[in-house]
């Protein structure tokens, strides 16, 4: 049956080469209809107590029309979502080398801790005396983030890395306006993370690019030449998205400060240097820390994450509400501007979110930090960097590593598609062929600094055997492409739950929710 867009309204057999069986499935390849195609409005998977008889006080606003929700019995729900889960690749199944995304092992202890009723089942507006342990936990994590970065203040509430970035840039803007120094331009190097220009624009700044030099770093001379009284801030990602450390960072920060501007550092890649380098020692004014990347929270198909922001002394007074203070043997949540003006944050620019940020992620981050300790976090950064350099060293003879000769990489190895030139195989084809080999592909076409980029981040939780297996696949595919075996790449993947999906169709004729198919009779 077809829908209005002329697309099939029900799944077809997993193995299209063979005739579909009664179930439409082949062995363990399970197809699963949408729950709206299985469920019905009068089926229910929960048993609720009866409703006491009272006179309604809804004011005549009762919802009469059908909502259109489908229900299933509990066992059917379990089966539906279990079948769906099997169409996903995940870090629990194998290496997930997405550069800049940091897919590392997710310890289950952290999950268990976050679900303790004392953390998972407390309300953000309970009396503060009933949540002293939670406030103590936030205070301790905040203190440790300050120690790890050598920065005097931290705002815990931002809900994701990009949200933290916004928080940091708002603090910069507030600090400059407080000085009566309105500046209009933010400089963003080409090697910065993807969200940076959008964030700066969102704060009302005009964005200008600073080019990368031949070694994939910020062009220091170009940056210095552009600094002036109109520049509010420079947003730098360090280690940058080429996977490289900015060796001139101290000089960059000094030059930016001399020009009366601030340095925002995108801390998305902090896991490469945690315990080895403190951003405060480099001269950075604000940096968000993706707790989910550096200190591990499962990515859950896209989120949630958490993006606390550390601030220099110059920006600390402008940090957003709320924050936790320890005074007179008690932890206090400062959430009001007027009533409790705190000396440490007396120019707070306001509130970023309704409540206090991502408690669930704080618990996981603290559990991760405690499990590793100061000694282990250092080892985390070292192993992440070692693993990336090992991949770079073992692949650069058959793949193209544009910055491979300009020194070691940090926690991710960047390749370009130069080695595929003339083979008819693109970065996309190469990545899709990795799926047939049982691997999740690397980050593709990002960063934009090199052509056909492939950015590989192994993280510290991969063993040498796992890396060797990935390396063999990368080398094998590179050699196959060069040998002219283009058929292997042309329509890959061949063995995934789906062949290549038509993204153009999805964008040109967007279908974002399920509609009942037209009755067959009407279609004739």
């Amino acid at each position: 049956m077809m829908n209005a867009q002329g697309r099939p309204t029900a799944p077809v057999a997993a193995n299209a080469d063979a005739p579909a069986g009664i179930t439409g499935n082949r062995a363990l390849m399970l197809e699963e209809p949408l729950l709206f195609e299985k469920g019905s409005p009068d089926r229910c998977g929960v048993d609720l107590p009866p409703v006491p008889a009272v006179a309604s006080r809804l004011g005549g606003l009762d919802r009469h029309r059908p909502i259109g929700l489908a229900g299933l019995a509990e066992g059917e729900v379990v089966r539906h979502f279990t079948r769906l889960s099997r169409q996903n690749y995940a870090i629990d199944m194998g290496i997930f080398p997405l550069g800049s995304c940091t897919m590392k092992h997710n310890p289950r202890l952290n999950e268990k801790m976050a679900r303790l009723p004392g953390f998972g089942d407390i309300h953000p507006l309970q009396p503060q005396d009933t949540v002293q342990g939670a406030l103590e936990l936030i205070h301790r994590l905040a203190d440790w983030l300050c120690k790890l970065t050598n920065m005097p203040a931290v705002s815990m509430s931002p809900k994701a890395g990009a949200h933290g970035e916004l928080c940091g840039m708002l603090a910069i803007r507030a600090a400059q306006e407080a000085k009566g120094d309105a500046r209009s331009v933010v400089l963003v190097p080409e090697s910065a993370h993807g969200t940076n220009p959008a964030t700066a624009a969102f704060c009302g700044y005009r964005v200008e690019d600073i080019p990368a030099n031949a070694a994939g770093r910020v062009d220091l001379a170009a940056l210095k030449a552009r600094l002036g009284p109109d520049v509010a801030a420079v947003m730098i990602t360090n280690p940058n998205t080429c996977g490289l450390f900015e060796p001139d960072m101290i000089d960059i920060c000094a030059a930016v400060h001399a020009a009366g501007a601030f340095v925002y550092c995108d801390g998305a890649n902090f896991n490469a240097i945690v315990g080895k380098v403190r951003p405060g020692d480099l001269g950075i004014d604000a940096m968000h820390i993706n707790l989910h990347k550096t200190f591990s929270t499962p990515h859950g198909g896209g989120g949630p994450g958490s993006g606390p922001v550390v601030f220099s002394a110059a920006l600390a007074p402008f940090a957003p509400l709320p924050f936790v203070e320890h005074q007179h043997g008690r932890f206090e949540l400062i959430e009001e501007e007027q009533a409790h003006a705190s000396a440490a944050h007396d120019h707070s620019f306001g509130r970023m979110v309704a409540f206090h940020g991502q408690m669930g992620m704080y618990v996981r981050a603290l559990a991760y930090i405690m499990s590793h300790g100061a000694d282990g976090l250092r080892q985390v950064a070292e192993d992440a960097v070692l693993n990336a350099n090992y991949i770079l060293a073992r692949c650069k003879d058959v793949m193209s590593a544009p910055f491979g000769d300009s020194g070691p990489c940090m926690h991710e190895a960047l390749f370009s598609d130069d080695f595929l030139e003339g083979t008819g195989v693109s970065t996309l084809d190469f990545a899709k062929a990795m799926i047939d080999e049982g691997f999740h592909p690397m980050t593709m076409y990002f960063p934009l600094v090199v052509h056909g980029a492939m950015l590989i981040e192994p993280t510290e939780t991969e063993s040498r055997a796992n890396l060797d297996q990935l390396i063999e696949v990368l080398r094998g595919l590179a050699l196959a492409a060069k040998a002219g075996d283009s058929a292997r790449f042309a329509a890959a993947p061949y063995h995934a739950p789906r062949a290549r999906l038509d993204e153009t169709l999805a964008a040109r004729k967007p279908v974002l929710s399920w509609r009942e198919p037209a009755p067959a009779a009407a279609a004739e």
Partner: protein
Amino acid sequence: MRYLPLTPDDRRDMLRVIGASDIDALFRDVPEAARLPGPIAGLPHHMPEMLVERELGALAAKNVPAGAGPFFVGCGAYKHHVPASVDHLIQRGEFLTSYTPYQPEIAQGTLQYLFEFQTQVARLLAMEVANASMYDGSTAMTEALFMGRRVTRRKKYLLSGGTHPHYVSVAETLTRFTDDEVVSFEPALTPGAPGDDLAALIEAIDGETAAVVVQNPNLFGHVADLSELAAAAHAKGALLIAVVTEVVSLGAIRAPGEMGADIVVGEGQSIGNGLNFGGPYLGLFATREKYMRQMPGRLCGETVDANGKRGFVLTLSTREQHIRREKATSNICTNSGLCALAFTIHMSLLGEKGLRHLAELNHARAVQVAERLAAIPGVSLMNDHFFNEFTVMLPISGRPALRAMAEMGVLGGVSLGRLYPARADLDHGMVIAVTETVSDDDIDKLDKALRELVK
């Protein structure tokens, strides 16, 4: 170190393959002045699992969980029963430990549930299209303001007095450095219908207004018909943005989409997700199809694969940071995927019938509690119409009353003094939330505690 698989021999061999003398050779781009010689002071040494568990368990034990006794705290976060199968299913590794579905061929599990989620949310809010979730209700509301600006090319927003004050603060913060104008109405403590003055709001709409924002049920628990407000906004070329912080209410009361709203945002925590002290939560965002391309956030769309099979992909992402990044509609680059999954699973368990039953149960329980409390001498019920939350005025200040109730083992509500510190006239007000988890015994204990305090 139990999470790190490399052995000292591995590290030595790998350094040899790389051609580095030691690990610090790999950090040679770090300026000498910024290199730390050893572990950072002030953090513990690494700890075995058993000790981490003991220490965090001790911290958790210092808190009073909602499940420990009578609990009536709401105002934007609600204690509902979440069926055991929800948390079990979201902990399947293939969901829990997967990433943003950038490779759709091997992420159909995530993509299909996002498509199901979008369908459920659009229907629940009575809108045509929904996105794949945002950080939380407050940030979703602010994104709705910016979308209102894109649609109407105007920049003034009217925020009703019944909007959650924290949501209002977020909107004020995020528009602070734009030339947008946020007009926040003060809540009016009108007996019968506390919170909003819809007539004043209608009066204020003019040709500069991009959008009117109204929460329903509002912070004070009052439910209102938004149809007139929608008509007034439309007559002046403005949009109506409706905010729902208690989505279970939509199983009982008419959805904002049925009352003419153009954008509906919400906090989805109530379905499938725990309280978590404020996060992670789940922002819902839905609108009319004609505004689809102005909608922020991540979207999952249906398509076909090369063999003609139905499949799902992330779509319309050019509005995000992929190209012309400084022109992006927002800087968001994620969604609350796992919270959306919990929502989808819980909603599939409930179905239409279960959601309606749950909503009726919440309402009936709340009516019972409201009537009990209204009978206490000196306590007055402010609401005529409400869903599962209502406001009472006490003869005493709310904040100390709540602390005293907590001492008696009852977490009694949210004091308006905490939410509106500058409004002395609200100091005696308390918002009380009642869900299906409240038992008869809980009601008795709340009643007793309150009588004790006000006598």
